[in-house]
C-alpha cells in the first residue's frame, strides 16, 4: 500500500464526511425538508431548493448501478491493485455514489449486486469509504 499522502485536506465544510469515515460511518448530507441525500457537497438541496441540510449517517447498504475496471493507474492508490473496480452505487437513501467495489473478482460482480460500505485505511491516517459485496 502506498504511503504517499492522497487524501484531500478536509475543509470546515467537509470535515463531517471524513470524521464519519474514521468512525466507520458513511456520513452524507441530507435535506431536512425532502429527505434527499447528496454526494458530493451541496449548499442548496438539488431537489427542493432548501438550505436545511445536515450530515446524517447513511445505512451503508446499496446496489451496484454499474461498474468497470480501471486498467491504467494515474494515482498512487491505483498501483499494484489493477484492475481496480470502479462503480456507481445506488445507496438505500437514494443517492448514486461514485466509489469502488473491493473484495470481489470482476468475473463475480454483476449490475444489481447488493453491497455495503467498508473503509480503507491508509498509512497517512486517511480513511476512504468503499463498498464490498454483501
Amino acid at each position, binding site marked *: 500500500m502506498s504511503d504517499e499522502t492522497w487524501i484531500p485536506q478536509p475543509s470546515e465544510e467537509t470535515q463531517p464526511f471524513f470524521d464519519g469515515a474514521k468512525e466507520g460511518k458513511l456520513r452524507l448530507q441530507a435535506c431536512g425538508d425532502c429527505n434527499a441525500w447528496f454526494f458530493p457537497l451541496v449548499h442548496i438541496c438539488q431537489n427542493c431548493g432548501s438550505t436545511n441540510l445536515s450530515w446524517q449517517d447513511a445505512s451503508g447498504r446499496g446496489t451496484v448501478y454499474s461498474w468497470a475496471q480501471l486498467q*491504467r493507474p494515474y494515482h498512487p492508490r491505483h498501483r499494484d491493485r489493477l484492475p481496480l473496480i470502479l*462503480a456507481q452505487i445506488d445507496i438505500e437513501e*437514494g443517492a448514486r455514489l461514485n466509489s469502488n467495489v473491493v473484495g470481489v473478482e470482476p468475473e463475480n460482480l454483476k449490475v444489481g449486486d447488493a453491497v455495503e460500505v467498508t473503509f480503507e485505511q491508509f498509512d497517512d491516517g486517511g480513511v476512504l469509504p468503499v463498498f464490498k459485496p454483501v
Partner: protein
Amino acid sequence: MAHRMSGKAAICGLGMTEMGRVYRSATDLATEAVFLALKDAGLDKSQLDGLLINCGTTRNVNLGLHRSLGLKELNVLTFMQGFGSSAGQMIQYAAMAVDNGMADYICCVFADDPLKEGKRTGDAYAGGARPEALASLYPIYGFAGAIPMYAMGAQRHMDTYGTTQDQLGSIAIQQRQWAGMNENATKREPLDLDSYHASPWVVEPFHVLDCCLVSNGGVAVIVTSAERARDMAQPPVYIRGFAQAHNHDVGQGGHDPLLEGPGLKAGPRALSMADAKLEDVTQCQIYDCYTYTVLVTLEDYGFCEKGEGGAFVEDGKLGPEGSLPTNTGGGELSSFYMWGMTPITEGVIQGRGQGGERQCPNDLILVTGNGGVLNYHATLLLSPEAA
C-alpha cells in the same frame, strides 16, 4: 405535415483544417476554418454577418475570434457551450436566425488543440484537478474524464442484455472500413477482431480502440436561408429537422442515464419536424466518442429495440456493405475528433454527394451530437432536397 422550419435553412459552406497532430493554436485553427468555409461557399468575408463560436477541451477559442477574422460588423455573435452537442446546436440556432432575418450567412465554428508537440496522446486531457474537496475524491477512486462513465454504460448494457465485447468491436471495425475510403482519416489501416482484442485496456470493457481519437483541428459550417443556398457554389444541404434533449445525471438513483440517452426524446421531435419516419433515414452520422455511444444511440433512436443494439450492429449493417451506412467517414473513432463537428462534416459531404467511393444514399441523413455522459444531445436531419 412538416413543421414550418423544415427545409427553410441550408448549409452552404464547409471549412476543415488539417486534423490530428497539427501544432497550431485553436484560435488559428478556427480562423483558418472560417476562411476555408467562406471560400468553399463562394462568399466574400463582407457577406458574413453572423458568427457562433464553440471551443473544445482546451478552451482556446473565445468571443474574440471575430477580431482574428477581422470581422468589423456582425448582426449575430455569441459563444456557445453544449459540449459534444454544441455543433448541432449552433446550426439549429443559426437556422432559426437566418429564417427570422436576423442575419444572412452565419458561420458556426469549432476548434480544439489538446495535442502538444512532444507530449503523448494520453496526456492530452490530463490535469484539471477538481477544486471541491469531496469531488476531489473521484480521481482517488479512479474516476477521471468521461471514459470510466461510458465504460460503465457499456458494462451495464453487457450485464443487463448480454451484449458482448465482439459486438462493441464490430462497431470499431466497421468504422475503420469506412475510414479506409477517406483520405483525410487519421487511422486507415484495416482492423479485425484479433487486433481489436489485442488493443490495450483503458477502463475495461473499453480497449484503446473503443475510444475516439484525440485531434487538433478546426471546422466551420456556414448556414443560410434555403433561397440563398440554391444559387451558391456548392450544392445546398437542407436542414429538414432538428431537436435537442438533455438528460442530467444529478447523482440520484431511480433513472437509467447510462442505458437511455436523450436521443430517445430528441429523435421523434426531429423526425416530426421533417414529417419523416425512422425508415426514411438512409444513413447515420452518429456521435461516436466510444463504440458504446454508437450502440446506445442507435437504440435510443429506435433503429432496434432497447437491449438489442449488440446483435443489431454485429452483422455489418453499419459498414460499407450494410443496410444502414453509419459514420461513413470513419467517425471520431478512426477519422478525427472534432466533437459534434465530426458527424456534421461527413453529413455535409454526403448531403452534397461528394463522398466519392464512400458515397451512400443521402435522401435523409441523421446526424447526432452528444455531450457529457449521454447528457447533452442535438439532432439534425439533413438532405439534398428541401422537402
